[in-house]
């Protein structure tokens, strides 16, 4: 009980601090978090969770495990075409109507053999078909059947330099300000067996609203990583060199680059 002496003063201080905190909380709790949100240091602190999640989840996953594949009967009746409106320029629409005679997939960057492929040539590569669940960052999920070329086959064909760490997808769709969509994934997800460049959805050619003629499927991550309307694939060593430096359209707007959670 010799402790009780100093204990009282500490108790007083702590109680005072507690009342202060409570008062602060009551006076502007919502404003407090909004203000903290604007702080760069708080932002950086919160961001530290992203790499923790990525490391932890990938440690659990390993490299060979597959996302759940569903059956035909599970396919969604409605699949929300999210994101930018389709690129409605005459050039795009005319090409779409004609079955993509002018569209080419350009593959370049840090690769030994840069390549240009027509849609027909892509369809000639052994394909993978999968019925998988698409999880949007907003919270909804939809199931569809996708057919396309495993990205790993493209990687094997173009032979990236050992220093190439990311695959960047440059797209044809724009936001209201005319800014082009782009996305990136790292080589680990790029080589995942279910990562495909899809040209078919539910047994028909990829509809315009879902990214015709070619979109990405990365089943380990959320929907915003799965770039639509792809026109060019670039292998890079660093994401800082591409448009705004965060590795994707939504990443430039505050979303996590790692969207596996």
């Amino acid at each position: 009980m010799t402790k009780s002496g100093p204990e009282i003063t500490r108790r007083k201080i702590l109680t005072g601090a507690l009342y202060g905190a409570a008062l602060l909380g009551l006076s502007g709790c919502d404003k407090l978090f909004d203000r903290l949100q604007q702080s760069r240091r708080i932002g950086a602190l919160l961001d530290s969770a992203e790499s923790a999640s990525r490391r932890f989840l990938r440690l659990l996953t390993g490299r060979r495990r597959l996302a759940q594949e569903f059956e035909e009967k599970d396919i969604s009746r409605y699949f929300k075409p999210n994101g930018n409106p389709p690129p409605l320029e005459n050039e795009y629409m005319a090409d779409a109507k004609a079955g993509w005679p002018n569209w080419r997939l350009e593959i370049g960057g840090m690769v030994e053999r840069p390549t240009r492929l027509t849609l027909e040539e892509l369809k000639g590569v052994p394909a993978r078909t999968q019925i998988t669940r698409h999880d949007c960052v907003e919270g909804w999920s939809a199931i569809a059947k996708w057919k396309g070329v495993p990205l790993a086959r493209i990687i094997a064909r173009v032979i990236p330099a050992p220093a190439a760490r990311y695959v960047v997808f440059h797209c044809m769709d724009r936001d209201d300000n005319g800014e082009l969509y782009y996305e990136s994934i790292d080589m680990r997800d790029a080589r995942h067996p279910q990562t495909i460049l899809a040209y078919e959805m539910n047994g028909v050619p990829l509809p315009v609203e879902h990214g015709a003629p070619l979109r990405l499927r990365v089943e380990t991550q959320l929907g915003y990583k799965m770039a639509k309307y792809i026109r060019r694939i670039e292998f890079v060593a660093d994401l800082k060199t591409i448009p705004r430096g965060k590795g994707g359209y939504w990443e430039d707007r505050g979303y996590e680059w790692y969207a596996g959670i």
Partner: protein
Amino acid sequence: MNDIVYRHNRVTRATHWVNAVALMVLFMSGLMIFNAYPHLHWGSKAEPAEAFFSIYASGEDGEVRSYTELYGRRYDTTGVLGTQNTDMGPLPRAFPSWITIPGFYCLACGRRWHFFFAWLFVLNGLFYFIYNRATGHVSQFILRPRDVPKLLPMALYYLHLRKTSPQDGEYNPLQKLAYTSVFFVLTPLVMMTGLAMSPQMGVAFNWLPAIFGGRQSARSVHFILAFAFALFTLGHVMMVITTGMINNMRSMVSGWYREKFHVATAVEAPVPRAENGGADDKERP
């Protein structure tokens, strides 16, 4: 001063307050995330017509009204849920800004708060658990089969329908039920349903979303559990207030608690334990 007892150790006090902040941020940022898609579904996918719970706004004759729908029953919640009154008039928003983090609409921000505090919540909880497991404290609030017959008498005692408390340890049977449910049911479930929504986790363990009936079911259960936590916290705070707020708060800040009436059932109460024939000896380290 001889009736002041040391009730909560340093680790318990520190982790308690970290946990309080983490739960608050998780709840509020979770509602921000929910606002991005204010509908709940059962199963793997979200078929728009099949939501069992929805908050939505609709324009009617130039007026914005909002509704909350549960299993087809529709309630007008204009100005409370689905719309929020602002300087610019009512705006569509599922949960109002005063209960979300951040207050302004920002899904990306809500996610960053949520995941950071999810890590904090789990690591803090683990620290508490490991430390207090070692001190033997944890075993004192675990509900055991022999506590079950004492639950009803304890409830009756609380309701003033019974004169004596059936409490025989540091925690009474209802406290044991509450803490055991929160620690060993609610917390693991909220973690599992949260992780079940991660696409990467779904790849690692296909069974994880499946045990809840699919990813959308996991999301719905996660949402419901958040309110179970809120309900627990509300009950907890009410108990703190009604059983002597200053004294309780002091004990969770400084560790020291002033005993008034229940000396026999308090922390330093070896006497009743001895009378029980040492039945509870195993609970002590």
